[in-house]
């Protein structure tokens, strides 16, 4: 009995070592990546990939862990991007990272709070329908407020703030290399914080709600409050994505928050796998490269995207992340025997 236990511990610690080794290696690789890439274009592409990966992960927090479906999650990224864009363009002070970053995320939360409060008052179907209705509302507002947001042209030439700590300047966000490391840093922090939250008792309650709402409410949890908190967490992360996006591109356009963009995020999350935080990053990478590839072949990429979503749900509902997890578990169980 004792021997068995210690053997089990040994196996587990060995597995943990492999896991941490893998993560360390990955971090090492990502730190060196900018020097391996041939030109700044690819560096910016990888940075964009991190941002969309984070966005897909935030949708996974909502869909994979809380069981709530948002069709227009990109809209909240758009709100963050526009808030920062408008602030940096119109407010007459030198562009500041420390002011604009919390402001962008704060505005997203300020809008997401009342909307989320309304949405969680209804059930699953109506929640999903309402995300579309509100998403379209934001889109309409941005599109029609031509004087401030530039309408369908969007905003271009947004000033890029410097990254400063006290008086010490690290460099401008306009520099692709600096922006790469800044994005990597922020995305990593967000990933770790979200992982911690998901693994906490709070995360367990969210998963309980996903599995059986009635049972969770009988245990005594306030379902609506937990759903709202899950929603706010997802929207907050989407806001971070929006802010990073504005820094990276220096421009925003309404197409980043329309229904197609919302569907693209959903597709990335599904492709990557629900219920794994790292899966959506893979999904985002595959989606962005896939879309790039298909759009060079045909302009009717919508047909392929629709087909891909249907095939994914029908034949691969767990996505790539789910398949990798399944594979690892299977290997583990055969080893255990």
């Amino acid at each position, binding site marked *: 009995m004792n021997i068995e236990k210690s053997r089990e511990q040994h196996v587990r610690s060995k597995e943990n070592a492999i896991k941490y080794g893998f993560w360390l290696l990955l971090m090492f690789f990502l730190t060196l990546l900018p020097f391996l890439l041939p030109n700044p274009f690819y560096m910016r592409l990888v940075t964009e990939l991190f941002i969309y990966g984070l966005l897909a992960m935030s949708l996974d927090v909502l869909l994979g862990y809380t069981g709530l*479906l948002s069709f227009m999650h990109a809209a909240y990224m758009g709100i963050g991007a526009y808030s920062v864009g408008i602030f940096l363009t119109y407010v007459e002070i030198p562009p500041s990272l420390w002011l604009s970053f919390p402001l962008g995320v704060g505005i997203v939360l300020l809008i997401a709070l009342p909307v989320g409060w309304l949405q969680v008052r209804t059930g699953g*179907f109506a929640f999903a329908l309402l995300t579309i209705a509100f998403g379209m509302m934001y889109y309409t507002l941005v599109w029609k407020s031509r004087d401030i947001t530039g309408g369908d042209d969007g905003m271009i030439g947004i000033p890029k703030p410097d990254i400063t700590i006290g008086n010490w300047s690290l460099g401008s966000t306009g520099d692709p290399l600096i922006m790469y490391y800044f994005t990597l840093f922020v995305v990593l922090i967000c990933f770790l914080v979200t992982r911690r939250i998901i693994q906490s008792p709070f995360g367990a309650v969210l998963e309980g709600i996903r599995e059986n709402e009635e049972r969770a409410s009988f245990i005594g949890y306030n379902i609506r409050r937990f759903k709202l908190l899950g929603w706010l967490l997802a929207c907050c992360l989407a806001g971070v994505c929006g802010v990073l996006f504005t820094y990276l591109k220096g421009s925003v356009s309404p197409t980043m928050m329309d229904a197609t963009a919302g569907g693209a995020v*959903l597709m990335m999350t599904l492709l990557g796998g629900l219920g794994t935080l790292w899966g959506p990053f893979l999904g985002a990478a595959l989606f962005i490269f896939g879309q790039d590839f298909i759009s060079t072949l045909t302009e009717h990429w919508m047909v392929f995207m629709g087909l891909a979503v249907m095939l994914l749900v029908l034949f691969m509902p767990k996505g790539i992340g789910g398949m990798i997890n399944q594979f690892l578990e299977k290997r583990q169980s055969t080893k255990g025997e």
Partner: protein
Amino acid sequence: MQGEVVFWVQSGLNCLVLGGLLLLIAIGLNIIYGISRVINLAHASLYALGAYFGYTLVTTGINFFLAILIAPIMVAALGAVIERVIIEPTRERPMVYSLILTYGLMVFMDGMLKYIWGDAIHFVEVPAVLSQSISIAGIPYPFYRVFILIVCVVVMIGLALLLEKTKLGMAMRAASNIPEMVSGLGINMKLIHVSVFALGCMLAGIGGIIAGPLFTVYPMMGGEMLISCFVVLVIGGLGSLKGVTISALLVGAVQTLGFIFITDYAMVVVYVMMAIILIFMPRGIVGEGKFE
């Protein structure tokens, strides 16, 4: 003074026309939800498809009245195929999957519409009988809009008769309450699901072909209608036929008047109205909504 009366009567009739169209499309979505617990996000794409079928039939020289009969049947047949191939396999899975699946179908169908018919705006010619203007108590009004109202009323009466008086309708209503019991009584639930889905699609198809000449036919028409339908469903309460009827007329009126008085932000008013109703009546306007 005279001009003002004319304006209000015409606007009032316009409200009714849009309300009737919304009702026709939203009720199809609603009966599918009531019985199969599936929200078909591609419903409005089927509406657009109905309009495109109508356009193609009319341009190939088929009488418009005949096209009104043929196009919805074509849409319904496609609906039956969709139900068997896509909806049926996910019936046992959580509702998120059917939503995402029909979302994929919507993207696919909108892409196909663009692929087949192109980006251009198409105009549908209606027979001379319909394109004239009539006068209602001295106030001129296009007869085609009155025709839409007549079609909506006729279809709604037909639907009510189908649900209330026929065996199939009775089975459908029973299935919306206790599906296990209905299938226990030896009624083929699969057949019920398919026929309800096809019926809903047919209603969308009818809405599409009669809306075509009014709004013109273009690829985005489905998306715009979809959003309005959601608002109607949320305000009326999912699964409630009475609530949806009231809310369709309400949304039709607010949307029409909104476009007259505030143009650009008309839809925002509709969303705000929806939000207020949700705060005070989360189960819809008559409190019968079955949100799950």
